[in-house]
């Protein structure tokens, strides 16, 4: 396109062009002679407004603006996994090679490595009819992930020719397709997709399979389904990032997309360090073999921060379409919302609540609605689970981002400052949190873990609620005046809190706990509780039970009983019986 379009005004990351009709809404453009990436966000007959994804220092009126004719899109193909990108899918490792430790502007590097050869197996032959989403070739992307090349949505036809199996680069044509009108399309190893459009699927499936995380408070108390949405709100220092890291490490999704949106640089380097050292217990391979990182740290340009969430989501959907279960961790969605507010302010839009633009709720809902468990176009099952951290201003959950997120997510894991102060991690408050997936997931738990699991969970929840109301009294008059049966509830609740809900992420066994062990832990706690109830009913004071040290052994069972030896729980329960037996005899 001719470069008759030039910059007129500059205000922070917002650039305007006067009197032009050559751009369309959301089109990706290059700004200035160093070709900074930007996007068209507003058009009227006088002014076209561009948000630039890089620092605008040094731009001047009269510098050229180049259109690309396509919306902001990402390149999808093998090489995404085990990579780290910035908010607009530029590979940070490649940028480091070209521009050193500090990111310079206008870096022109391809998103994916175009020189690398992939070991491709062709899955179709000449004469086959292909429809959108069908797999025409595969290649091993990492040791555990097979990359499946799919016909892009909107394209179908007959295979005219294929290349033989062998080694190909990203842009090499491997299959040629002829559509109904006789036009030929060359299919390579990659495709492009606009980040703000959801990729299509055949049907959405109900949320009936849990995402197993190995975190007791989540799996047992507030479970999330595959394809579900969850929000983790919490003030600073309450452990949002730690919780997200734990989920990224241990949840049973096939692929993790970790979006560091406006967060700390040192945290991203920690993720890089840790994930390459950690071995996934299921595959025996480093965690990085199933992880994509998107790092847009808080000092990187604000407009790219807004895009990073969509980039991550599009990558996740792409792998979902191949038939994988993908979980996306967005840390933190508040920074994304603030990026919206910042850009909205530059555009001088009318602000709604706390300066946030009026379209904040609709953007949030569009984002979370891209989650789901689906039947893909090629007929397999895949899912995208979204887990978004929320950083409420001043730890106040009534602020707009938290409130609106609450409306569009079905799990709410509220992090609590006072728990975090006492170093009770994960600091998920069991009174304020909720999960709407209970009823959807109950059949699964029933089939896989038996009726008992749900019964135990309900009992545990009931005890915690009872404790909370008793604590109101204790706060006023102290625990000494309570009758023994209520003291027992307080002691049991303490064992639940310390022994069950609190989980040590740095302990080799406790960092991930299988569902079976979670169930047995609950069983042990409730066993002691019901036995002790009988003893107290027989007018034996609770202090004598406390002296036996049973509650302490419950608090330490998470360390004492290894994950691999659930049979030790039988011994624990037998020990409880013998110890209590000495009281009644």
């Amino acid at each position, binding site marked *: 396109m001719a470069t008759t379009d030039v910059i*007129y005004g*500059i*205000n*922070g990351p917002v650039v*305007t062009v006067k009197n032009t009709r050559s751009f369309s809404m959301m089109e990706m453009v290059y700004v200035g002679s160093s070709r900074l990436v930007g996007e068209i966000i507003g058009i009227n007959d006088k002014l076209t407004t561009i948000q630039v994804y890089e620092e*605008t*220092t*040094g*731009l*001047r*009126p*009269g510098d050229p603006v180049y259109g690309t004719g396509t919306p902001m899109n990402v390149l999808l193909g093998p090489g995404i996994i085990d990579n*780290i990108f910035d908010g607009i899918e530029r590979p940070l490792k490649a*940028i480091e090679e070209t*521009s*050193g*430790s*500090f*990111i*310079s*502007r206008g870096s022109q590097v391809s998103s994916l490595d175009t020189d690398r050869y992939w070991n491709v197996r062709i899955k179709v032959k000449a004469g086959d009819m292909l429809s959108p989403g069908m797999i025409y070739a595969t290649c091993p992307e990492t040791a555990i992930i097979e990359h499946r090349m799919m016909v892009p949505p909107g394209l179908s036809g007959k295979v005219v020719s294929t290349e033989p199996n062998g080694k190909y680069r990203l842009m090499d044509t491997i299959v040629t397709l002829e559509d109904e009108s006789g036009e030929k399309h060359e299919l390579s190893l990659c495709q492009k997709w606009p980040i703000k459009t959801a990729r299509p699927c055949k049907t959405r499936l109900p949320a009936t399979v849990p995402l197993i995380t190995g975190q007791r408070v989540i799996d047992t108390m507030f479970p999330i389904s595959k394809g579900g949405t969850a929000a983790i709100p919490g003030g*600073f*220092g309450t452990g949002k990032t730690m919780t997200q890291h734990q989920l990224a490490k241990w949840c049973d999704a096939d692929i993790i997309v970790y979006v*560091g949106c*406006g967060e*700390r*640089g*040192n945290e991203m*380097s*920690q993720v890089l*360090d840790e994930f390459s050292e950690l071995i996934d217990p299921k595959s025996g391979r480093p965690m990085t073999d199933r992880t994509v990182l998107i*790092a847009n*740290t*808080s*000092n*990187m340009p*604000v407009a790219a921060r807004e895009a990073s969430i969509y980039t991550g989501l599009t990558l996740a959907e792409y792998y979902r379409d191949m038939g994988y279960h993908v979980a996306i961790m967005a840390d933190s969605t508040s920074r994304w919302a*603030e*990026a919206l507010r910042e850009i909205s*302010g530059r555009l001088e839009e009318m602000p709604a609540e*706390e300066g946030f633009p009026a379209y904040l709720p609709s953007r949030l809902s569009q984002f979370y609605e891209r989650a789901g468990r689906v039947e893909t176009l090629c007929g397999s099952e895949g899912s995208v689970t979204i887990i978004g951290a929320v*950083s409420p*201003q*001043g*730890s*106040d959950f009534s602020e707009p981002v938290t409130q609106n997120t609450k409306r569009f997510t079905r799990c709410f894991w509220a992090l609590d*400052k*006072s728990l975090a*102060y006492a*170093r*009770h991690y994960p600091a998920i408050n069991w009174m304020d949190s909720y999960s709407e997936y209970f009823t959807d997931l109950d059949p699964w738990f029933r089939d896989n873990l038996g009726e008992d699991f749900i019964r135990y969970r309900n009992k545990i929840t009931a005890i915690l609620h009872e404790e909370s109301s008793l604590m109101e009294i204790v*706060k*006023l*008059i*102290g625990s*000494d005046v309570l009758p023994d049966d209520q003291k027992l509830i307080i002691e049991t609740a303490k064992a639940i809190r*310390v022994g069950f809900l609190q989980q040590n992420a*740095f302990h080799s066994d406790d960092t991930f706990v299988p569902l079976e062990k979670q169930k047995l832990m609950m069983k042990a706690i409730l066993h002691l509780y019901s036995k002790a109830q009988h003893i107290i009913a027989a007018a034996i004071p609770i202090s004598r039970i406390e002296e036996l040290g049973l509650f302490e052994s419950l608090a*330490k069972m998470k*360390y004492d009983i290894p994950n691999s030896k659930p049979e030790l729980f039988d011994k624990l329960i037998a020990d409880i019986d013998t110890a209590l037996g000495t009281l009644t005899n």
Partner: protein
Amino acid sequence: MILDYVGVKEINGSLIVLDDVDNASNEEMVDIRLENGTYRHGRIVQIEGKRVVIQVFEGTNSISLDNTRTRLKAHPMELSLAPEIMGRVFNGVGTPIDGLGPVYAKKKADVNGTPMNPVSRIYPRNYINTGISTIDTLTTLIRGQKLPIFSGSGMKHNELAVQLVRQAKISDGEDNRFGIVFAAMGVKNDVADYFRRSFDESGVLSRVVMFLNLANDPIIERTLTPRCALTAAEYLAFECNMHVLVIMTDMTSYAEALREFSSSKGEIPGRKGFPGYLYSDLASLYERAGMVKGSKGSVTQIPILTMPNDDITHPVPDLTGYITEGQIVLDRQLEGQGFYPPVSVLPSLSRLMKDGIGEGYTRADHQPLANQLFAAYARVQDARSLASVIGEEELSPVDKKYMQFGKLFEQYFVNQGFGENRTIEQSLDLGWKLLSTLPRSELDRVDDKLLDMYYITDPEQLVFDTMDTGSSDNS
């Protein structure tokens, strides 16, 4: 071709507007010459065709619509850098004010810096021994970290910062490559003087670079002060391979300067009138801490901020807490009881601590001990609130133990002398001694093996005296 533009179109606060300007570029520097021959400096902040908005650093006093000549300098705001900046004193925009003449620049760098590539960062793991029990044990400072001090007006944050500077020691003994960059933003004259004197007394003055924007200096300069300081710090760290500790005080004044500037630009305000981009702006400062591959140096930041009305949910401490890797919170009540440093242990946190302590760094029992101290002290707060309702006498025996633990903890662990430098072993052992005043069954965050090693059963040894508050004053 360099052109002078005569006169201005509009003046609003610290902003002036020029018309018919050709070839202006965003963030470009300008010189403004007044009729009386004095110069002011400014920066372009917004361009709309030929209309250009300029921010004047020294303020717009006595500028009229036609008594100025403005010249575009064709480069963004830059700082002259050379290893010789050590020991020098600059104003808020990097002009020397110590009368020793200009810096002969080896390099000029844009004060805005460029974002560090997350892939190039080295994850910080080396701890800095500060000799202060609460910080070393419970909120360990790590080299390359940004750990702010949340304080309030009138509290002893300056003393704490000075003690940190004086005592900070890196475990591997590379002290000769240690430097300090001090940025004062809107602080009082005597505070800046206190810092200068303290640096002098402890013999580090020749290793300090000072950027001073005092309370009565122009606010636009204030918005550039931390940027200049961090540019100098990055230069010393990444090009001269030094370990640089950056102390920035007071971040609240900085944010208020930003608010003043933003409102004069007519921007839409966010919370408490601060601009919507306050988070991004603060992040662009704090994120300049760290270490990069290929350089032996590091930038460690200790920003100090005073919480207006001691309110930790005020936007400045709130957003700072979201960006920095933890915080050290000072407490007025502890200060009132005469304890120094008045570190409020529970809300204080160091996020990088977990990977820089333990076996091979400090001692294997460090993390479990810290967890147990936090848990126990949290329990003390519950006992205290209960005692305030029903009276201390009515508490259960365990709660009474906690009350006693709380008192001892504050008096002997939190409290320490201004000149007292405790080793990490002293601090950790003191922690165990304090925990031993509680029944062993209460210590549920540590495993039995550690308890066997460290739990003191002999009541004779549980006597606390002045030995523990440090008569070993070595200042």
